[in-house]
């Protein structure tokens, strides 16, 4: 007997009941692996600390409460400052990346002068080296420039490593804009710069939005190693480092750490639900045709 048999289901998509059961079992196992840490983390955040350390293990908390959430602010008066810092750094990185990448992506999409192909290859090669490998000279550079323990030390290096994927993504998008538009603008006597600003940029803006979102997420999720190494001032710490510094020490206050983590990721989770269409598009556009 086949399930989901109605007029609209193509024959090829009809499953036997055991096939459906198998698919759902597989999907649930897969999603359990991906979501279990969040589920467990959330339940931990609802438990009083004393109840956390009980044997035998229980999954569902008894008399759970949101106490740990308010406790976070007592332990970490700087909590919102950390969240603000995370947003500030990611926003600054995103703006800088866009300023550098939008013109460059257009150049790669529209012109093919000698030497540009190797430059594009070199940009892609940059993404192969993580910041962690280049920390020593970057550390010395930041120290020489007097930028250690400032926001700049976390923004400047971060930008460089997000440039390659942004260029690749936006170049793919811009190549789909018809060349005829450039030609028409040229016939009308528009300068190269005018064409870029008044003709191309407005058409490319949806692509720029996708790149901005991807860059922001990258900047928000990867602000660890530079912040760990180049900054030791509490007031400039982004959220992950702030939590790492305050909870990683002796006795870990797990329920508050989890509560803080959840408050910290709430913005990201909201972003997923509103922008997931862009995310899938953004992730795949640059890669698979």
């Amino acid at each position: 007997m086949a399930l989901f048999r109605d007029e609209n289901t193509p024959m090829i998509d009809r499953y036997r009941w055991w096939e459906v059961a198998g698919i759902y079992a597989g999907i649930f196992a897969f999603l359990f692996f991906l979501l279990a840490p969040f589920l467990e983390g959330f339940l931990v955040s609802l438990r009083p600390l004393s109840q956390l350390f009980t044997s035998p293990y229980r999954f569902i908390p008894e008399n759970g409460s949101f106490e740990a959430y308010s406790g976070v602010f007592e332990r970490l008066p700087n909590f919102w400052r950390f969240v603000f810092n995370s947003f500030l750094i990611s926003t600054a990185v995103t703006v800088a990346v866009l300023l550098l990448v939008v013109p460059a992506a257009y150049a790669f999409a529209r012109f093919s002068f000698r030497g540009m192909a190797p430059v594009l290859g070199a940009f892609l090669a940059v993404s192969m080296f993580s910041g962690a490998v280049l920390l020593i000279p970057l550390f010395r550079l930041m120290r020489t420039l007097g930028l250690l323990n400032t926001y700049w030390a976390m923004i400047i290096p971060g930008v460089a490593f997000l440039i390659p994927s942004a260029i690749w993504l936006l170049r793919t998008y811009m190549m789909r804009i018809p060349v005829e538009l450039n030609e028409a603008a040229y016939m009308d006597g528009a300068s190269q710069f005018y064409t870029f600003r008044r003709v191309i940029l407005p058409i490319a803006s949806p692509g720029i939005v996708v790149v901005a979102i991807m860059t922001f997420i990258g900047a928000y999720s990867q602000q660890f190693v530079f912040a760990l190494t180049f900054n030791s001032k509490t007031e400039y710490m982004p959220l992950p480092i702030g939590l790492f510094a305050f909870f990683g020490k002796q006795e870990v206050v797990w329920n508050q750490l989890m509560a803080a983590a959840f408050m910290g990721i709430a913005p990201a989770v909201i972003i997923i639900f509103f922008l997931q269409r862009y995310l899938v598009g953004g992730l795949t556009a640059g890669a698979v045709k």
Partner: protein
Amino acid sequence: MTNSRSAWIFAWALLAPAILYVLVIVAWPLVETFRLSFTDASLKKTVNWVGGANYAKIFNDTFLAVIVRTFTWTFFSVLLKMIIGTCGAVLLNSAVPGRHLFRILTMPPWIVPMAIGIFMWSWMYNGQFGMISGLLQRFGLTGGPVAFLAYGSTAYWATIVTDVWIGVPMVTIYFLAAIQSIPKDLYEAAWTDGASRWTRFRRITLPLMMPAVITMSMLSLIATFNSFDIIWILTRGGPSGQTTTMIIDTYNTAIGSKKYGEGSARAVVICIFLSLFCLAYFRVTRRLQTIGGRE
């Protein structure tokens, strides 16, 4: 139009800021790492040229063990990401109700700040009270609590599992897009000829998603080789160096012990491996493009 001199100037002017930026923040540090690796740079003011002494010093059994460990760690992590990613993509591609929701639910590990996801895993691995140890005890699979991060071999696998967890969403979504770009009529033709679901997967899906698998495994290889946050937060390379990969090792030498010269020599070794991967990647993707007839 695109051949004129002014277009040439305009194109390079558009590229110049990005090129300059990357030269200063990536290319120059690369050269500098290479230069420093031949010096005894440290916190002292004076920097002396020491020739190959740093390299002579680091090439010992401990460092070779670190290299081997980095390769096995990366290998298992990438392999698991590819297998789980393929299974996930195939499952999410099936025409069952709720698949759009399932696709969204795949993304959190990728979208959430990496460090925060890792904090959650560090609780999961907690020996006495964490979920994994707790469930294992509940079902009587282990005699007592297992403190995963306290022993070398379990910590090694625990860090791999966390790395896989972070990498799988991206791999899955990418593979899903690859599967969906396979022309539907191939499946219909095979179905008409009576091919089973398994045969269709084995003979159509798998071969046609292979370019995506190869591309992704190369990219994933490079990213995993560079992995720092996961191991640093979970174990800091311990216990007794059992999860120390080359990146962690370099960080400990350079930033921990402030031995910039020796740390640079270790970083240079990483860079050599990365350059080889990078070359291989460009080679493979070029070959894939000629086979697939893509642009």
